């Protein structure tokens, strides 16, 4: 996996900076090596979640050149929809996907038809401002409905279950599910884009909306379907986020930023690139956290800025 090369490099650099507390004792050293491998493994699995944040963002940018600033807040909205679904129906978080995904997709379709389609055009300002306003509306609406208290979805025994890989390495079942889902989502998007009629419609409107319309496509409908699909992915990401950690109405913008960083690192238009981007952010964050808890988020941002400085087109650019 291409993401591992820079990740391991970062790891070695980071290790060189570590105070040599256990130097000399081979046994202790071995244990700390395992600890670092574990950290990287956690980072890779976390990267799956970030790739899912990024996939929805990348999809709508690819189809209609729209950057949705409310993306992170929609992830949090999905988490709250899942919270309501699990509490009122007494179902588990993973089962709640059956409700959350269609609900979010419907919201996406309606949002695009009623609001966002009107902002598309040559001018950058309207989509940015409208989605920014939407972000503020969602955040404060959730604050009003659910208060600022942080909550969490309870997934039961699967939350703490882990699989030992031998040699002191272990991975949680939940992070693995999360990672596998991310790969499935990205693979599914790839398949949809290049193997189905809908994907053809997406690509056609992306290449030339005017000609696509002449060929009988209803652009407003195609864009709304893309947004619906984007929010369906957001729904999955939101549920996983809600199971993974505490959430409250204010955490949306940070999720947007992680997803955005993954998109830019991966390279615009490349779906598998976003997975690599997500992994890089995830690994940087877990390594940063291991070095000093205050460096958790900072390390992810710095990884992004380094890529931006040395390879602004991203690692696997597809569009120019």
């Amino acid at each position, binding site marked *: 996996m291409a993401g591992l090369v820079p990740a391991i490099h970062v790891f070695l650099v980071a290790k060189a900076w570590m105070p040599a507390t256990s130097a000399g004792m081979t046994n202790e050293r071995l244990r700390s090596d395992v600890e670092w491998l574990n950290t990287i493994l956690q980072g890779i699995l976390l990267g799956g979640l970030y790739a899912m944040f990024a996939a929805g963002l990348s999809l709508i940018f690819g189809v209609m050149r729209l950057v949705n600033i409310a993306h992170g807040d929609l992830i949090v909205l999905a988490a709250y929809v899942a919270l309501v679904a699990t509490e009122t129906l007494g179902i588990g978080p993973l089962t709640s996907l059956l409700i959350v995904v269609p609900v979010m997709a419907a919201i996406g379709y309606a949002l695009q038809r009623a*609001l966002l389609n*009107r902002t598309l055009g040559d001018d*950058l300002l*309207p989509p940015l*401002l409208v989605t920014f306003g939407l972000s503020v509306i969602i955040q404060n609406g959730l604050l009003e409905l659910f208060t600022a208290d942080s909550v969490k979805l309870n997934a039961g025994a699967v939350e703490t279950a882990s699989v030992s890989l031998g040699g002191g390495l272990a991975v949680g079942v939940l992070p693995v599910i999360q990672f596998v889902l991310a790969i499935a989502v990205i693979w599914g998007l790839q398949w949809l884009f290049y193997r189905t009629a809908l994907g053809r419609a997406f690509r056609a409107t992306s290449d030339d909306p005017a000609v696509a319309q002449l060929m009988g496509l209803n652009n407003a409908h195609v864009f709304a379907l893309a947004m619906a699909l984007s929010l369906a992915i957001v729904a999955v990401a939101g549920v996983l986020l809600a199971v993974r950690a505490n959430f409250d109405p204010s955490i949306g913008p940070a999720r947007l930023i992680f997803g955005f960083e993954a998109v830019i690192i991966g390279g615009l238009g490349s779906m598998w690139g976003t997975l690599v981007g997500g992994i890089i952010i995830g690994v940087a964050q877990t390594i940063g956290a291991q070095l000093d808890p205050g460096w958790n988020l900072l390390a992810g941002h710095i990884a992004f800025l380094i890529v931006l400085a040395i390879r602004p087109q991203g690692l696997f650019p597809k569009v120019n």
Partner: protein
Amino acid sequence: MAEFRVEHSNWSSRIGTAIVLVALVALAAAPWWADRADLRLLSEIYAYVALASLWNVLAGYAGLVSVGQQAYVGLGAYLLFGLASLAGVNPLAAIPISAAAAAIVSVPVAALMFRLRGHYFAIGTWVMAEVFRLLAAQTSALGGGSGTSLPVSVVLSIASSRQMREFVLYWVALAQVAVILLGIVWLLRSRYGLALTAIRDNELGARSNGINVARIKFVVYVAVAFGTAMVGALIFLQKIRISPDTAFSVNDWTAFVIFITVIGGIGRIEGPIIGTVVFFVLRQTLADLGAIYLLILGVVAIAVMLKAPKGIWGLIADRFGWQVFPLERRLVIGKR
């Protein structure tokens, strides 16, 4: 050969400028007619007029839609706290020094951010602001994540009596917004202003007429960073207390500022002033609603963006041809 000259003012800008000057004199005398709470409110209004006017130049004219200007509000404020409480610099003198230092920081930031196009630039600036916030939280000399207050000796060095201190800070705030507005009027009347207006109306057209768009955008970004940091430094000098979350707040220093500009009228110098008035009227009347107030503000901003993208002042200016500041360019043939 016919003589010709360019005229900037018309009847409405003469009236407008006169009103602005009278208002300025009246506001400068506010310590004699307003109470302490009014002075604080007025200072806050000046800060928002200044921030929104600066953002308007950035986004409305130069097309650089940043949602990360809180980076410079916070940076200016933190630099001021560092200079005043750690290095012992007089806090009023520290305001321009902090702004200059923030402008220097903005140069490499601009070099990095300008690699991101259009929409992605917006979110990139937000990442930068987050980096600044996290770094501030790591700065233990200034209280780390929980922040710090200015020492009493620093506060006393502004003026020894509390009343005089409030007057001085009020006048500095008024002078600051006046200088920023004057600077923007001057900029827009210069040839750079012509270039900026051209970029606002059609970037490609501006480029094809020989305007170095990238260079002008860079200069505007750095200049706006300077102004924003200056405003941020003063805001937190008045608050006396700072923390990473308040200094780098996206709601306070970017969301409100964007809403003010959009509602008032983006791409026009009068817009942010009108928008600030609307914002504070709404805030004073809806303050009890808490989160609902922000929600309403978001709805209003979206509605304005979709239904009247030129904002309130845009509607007025289009309908009546008014301008408050002498900015238009009219070619007059013949001697004066």
